[in-house]
């Protein structure tokens, strides 16, 4: 088994802060130019070479991405982080393929503010587009230079030379030159060209195959792979002291008494920020529990406890017209209007967020599992009043984030403690109730749709309005952190801005991919946030696709048409048609048994953001009418993510997306009263367990050789939610439009049995 395991020696530690090597990726002045990471977090790095593909636009020099050592081994640098989505393995395959090296001779270095290009946030299903595209083309450039070097050496034409896939360049007469020898004669400190010859997809040796993920062996055997597993020499354990949830504070914490508890080394205080530092983790927890016995109070305005739909709709809006098209069309014969919604939901990471920080020799090093390593680098520097070149932020894996959970805030917390305790490594992990109480939630959303069908059974008009708070509140300066508001001199809070389409945030995927006439799509952007919210996997696409794909079924049903045929009649994009056809063929859609009160089938489709991966999901459910419980018997899904880097990597992400979306859609809703959140553990915020997950999930990845990469990490969230509601409607005739589709709601809607 291959393994990636982390170890830290004292020497690493002492040099960690000083390893800021000056090389070609330090040209990261900020500019609004490309939407790295799908527009989340700070603006992408400045574009200096707009003709180049992917993140090469900002970092055109080859040695920012790839170095070849004298033994012919390659080290590849990506600004994207391994979140458990398998990106490090996928990018490793991309690099090996385009370098034409055995994968075993390629190493990959992930997001590190001192070593890798700043590719923005690892988000928005952008890692393959941003980094995969850059690495593929950088590797193709490197291979081209190696071949050219050999041609010069042998005085023959470049066209006569090949690479052997084993690390050598080969002439027709059999002469060999290994990469290491050739690379030592070359400088890779040169700019990429945009049309370096790429490997022929028909001859791929590594890409598009399934290689075992590099990080899994350590995860199965107790290897030290997570930031939670870091143990630095002399490290102390910290816990942050806060009220039970956002907008609350402890009234009169007895810090003196806590400071006298066993093992407690220090109480770090800075304004309202407070943290306990102890020798052992359990001692830190015991001191935190002691402090938490004191009463707390709400210190902000009350939370809205009436209907969340009403709460959202009465907020001031900034209206954005997403689409307003006018076409000739026949008169409407039948119209359907409906309101769909989702309440606030949690990221719900299994491991509470954690960070390790060390302030030594005037420099801060932060090990973080945030998706926003480069924003953490800059924004925490501001928080602790150090110049950014005295701060280094290194991504280390943690429990999955699925957006902005506590990972960013805990990094700021750890750094604030570490700066107060020089030369002492600090490991700070949030408690379970702190993750539930303080993480930014996935925003509640409401949509209202109205669509009309003409005499020919086709749609003649389509209206979609969506109300949503901003989804992009990832901290890009110190004011964005909880701690940034707690320190003695709080930092200003930046005004919120929507992400422009086609990425969008609350309006993500509100523009149907279907060819529809007379479309009017309005985003009611709600800057005033009653609950703390930020990015959750797929942003607004979960609710917008749920709405559109539910409405497509409602229209098909109202006009007596088959839901698949109705969709295909309105879809021109051949790749969209192909995934719908593939998924329904695998499912056996044409031969399905019509809904009979206890069984039903439904489908959902979307192309993520209309510029990302295509995904169709089809499912069969069983409905227990006596209890309202829905059991998903099987799911078939088809995905077109362009050229797959790792087929099984895509399958794993989409399977996971389907299971996670089913949990969101059937059972999740954050509970709160007017004072505080009351979902603070897994009993107050149940998610799917093994007895709830589908009988089977099959994901089919379309091959698409040589087509541009389209990230697949979020493609299934919307289609799955809609497929479930559509299957329920097929089974029972009952249409539920308000998530979560809980047994109670289903039972109530079914009425007397």
């Amino acid at each position, binding site marked *: 088994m291959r393994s990636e395991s982390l170890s830290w020696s004292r020497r690493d530690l002492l040099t960690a802060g000083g390893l800021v090597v000056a090389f070609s990726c330090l040209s990261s002045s900020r500019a609004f130019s490309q939407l790295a990471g799908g527009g989340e977090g700070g603006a992408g790095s400045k574009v200096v070479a707009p003709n180049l593909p992917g993140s090469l636009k900002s970092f055109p020099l080859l040695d920012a991405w790839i170095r070849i050592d004298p033994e012919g081994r390659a080290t590849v640098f990506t600004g994207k982080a391994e979140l458990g989505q398998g990106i490090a393995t996928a990018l490793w395959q991309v690099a090996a393929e385009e370098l034409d090296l055995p994968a075993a001779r390629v190493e990959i270095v992930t997001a590190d503010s001192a070593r890798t290009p700043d590719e923005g946030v690892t988000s928005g299903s952008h890692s393959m587009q941003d980094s995969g595209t850059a690495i593929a083309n950088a590797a193709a450039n490197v291979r081209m230079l190696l071949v050219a070097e050999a041609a010069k050496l042998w005085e023959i034409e470049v066209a006569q030379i090949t690479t052997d896939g084993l690390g050598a360049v080969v002439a027709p007469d059999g002469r060999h030159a290994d990469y290491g020898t050739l690379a030592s004669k070359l400088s890779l400190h040169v700019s990429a060209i945009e049309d370096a010859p790429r490997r022929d997809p028909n001859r791929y040796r590594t890409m598009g195959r399934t290689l075992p993920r590099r990080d899994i062996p350590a995860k199965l*055997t107790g290897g030290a792979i997570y930031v939670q597993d870091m143990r630095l020499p002399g490290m102390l354990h910290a816990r942050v002291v806060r009220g039970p949830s956002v907008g609350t504070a402890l009234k009169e914490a007895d810090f003196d008494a806590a400071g006298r508890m066993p093992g407690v080394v220090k109480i770090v205080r800075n304004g309202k920020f407070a943290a306990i530092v102890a020798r052992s983790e359990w001692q830190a927890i015991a001191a935190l529990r002691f402090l938490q016995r004191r009463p707390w109070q709400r210190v902000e305005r009350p939370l809205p406890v009436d209907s969340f739909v009403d709460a959202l709709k009465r907020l001031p809006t900034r209206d954005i017209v997403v689409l307003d098209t006018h076409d000739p069309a026949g008169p409407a014969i039948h119209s359907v209007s409906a309101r769909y919604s989702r309440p606030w939901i949690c990221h719900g990471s299994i491991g509470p967020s954690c960070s390790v920080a060390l302030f030594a020799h005037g420099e801060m090093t932060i090990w973080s599992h945030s998706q926003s390593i480069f924003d953490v680098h800059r924004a925490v520097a501001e928080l602790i009043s150090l110049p950014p070149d005295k701060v280094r932020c290194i991504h280390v894996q943690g429990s999955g984030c699925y957006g902005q959970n506590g990972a960013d805030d805990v990094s700021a917390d750890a750094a604030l403690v570490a700066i107060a305790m020089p030369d002492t490594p600090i490991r700070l992990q949030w408690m379970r109730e702190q993750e539930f109480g303080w993480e930014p939630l996935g925003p509640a959303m409401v949509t209202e749709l109205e669509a009309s069908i003409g005499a020919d059974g086709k749609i003649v008009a389509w209206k979609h309005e969506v109300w949503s708070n901003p989804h992009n509140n990832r901290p890009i300066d110190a004011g964005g952190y909880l701690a940034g508001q707690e320190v003695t001199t709080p930092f200003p809070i930046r005004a919120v801005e929507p992400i422009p389409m086609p990425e969008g945030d609350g309006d993500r995927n509100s523009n149907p991919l279907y060819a529809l006439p007379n479309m009017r799509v309005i985003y009611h952007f709600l800057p005033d946030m009653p609950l703390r919210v930020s990015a959750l996997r797929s942003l607004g696409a979960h609710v917008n696709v749920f709405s559109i794909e539910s409405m497509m079924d409602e229209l098909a049903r109202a006009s007596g048409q088959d839901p698949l045929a109705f969709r295909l009649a309105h879809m021109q994009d051949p790749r969209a048609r192909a995934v719908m056809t593939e998924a329904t063929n695998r499912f056996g859609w044409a031969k399905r048994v019509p809904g009979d009160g206890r069984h039903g089938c439904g489908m959902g489709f979307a192309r993520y953001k209309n510029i990302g991966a295509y995904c169709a999901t089809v499912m069969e459910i069983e409905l227990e009418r006596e209890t309202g419980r829905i059991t998903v018997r099987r799911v078939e899904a088809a995905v077109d993510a362009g050229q797959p880097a790792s087929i099984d990597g895509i399958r794993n992400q989409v399977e996971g997306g389907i299971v996670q979306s089913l949990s969101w859609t059937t059972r999740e809703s954050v509970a709160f009263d007017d004072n505080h959140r009351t979902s603070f*553990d897994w009993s107050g915020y149940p998610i799917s367990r093994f007895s709830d997950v589908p009988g089977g999930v099959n994901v089919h990845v379309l091959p698409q050789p040589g087509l541009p990469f389209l990230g697949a990490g979020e493609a299934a969230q919307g289609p799955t939610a809609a497929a479930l509601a559509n299957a329920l409607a097929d089974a029972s005739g009952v249409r539920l439009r308000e998530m979560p589709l809980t047994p109670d709601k289903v039972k109530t809607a079914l009425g007397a049995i």
Partner: protein
Amino acid sequence: MTITLHVNGRDHTLEADPSTPLLYVLRDDLELNGAKYGCGLGQCGACTVQVDGRAVFSCLTPIAALEGRQIRTVEGLGTVDQPSRLQAAFLTEQAAQCGYCIAGMIMRAQALLDEKQHPTEADIRSHMDANLCRCGTHMRILRAIRRAAGLPSTEGF
């Protein structure tokens, strides 16, 4: 107090408050990474280890209750180079995404397989219900357990 814990076939004598949950002794004193802090409430299973063969939540089990008992963590099953049958099945099925829950999943599944050589699908699902996964890796975890148990890989109820 001084306490001797028998972990993965070895005795470890250490000084600790008897009320300390096993999880923190495993992680901080014995430097074992497998058992994870997830909730501290016995609701998620990320901290699952075996005690005398049974799956327990190490976050809720004070060490005072453990003298003389056989404690096994994921590190006691196998290594990267020599994985156990169950670990190898997880590897074959690529049954992890972020993987934070996985060591706990493996230990709970091991307890089932130790007790029942040929569990049914219903046995597996019901036994595994105590452990949470947020990445949605459930289908792969089930496949891995079926593989280790020698059951057909076909899914469905």
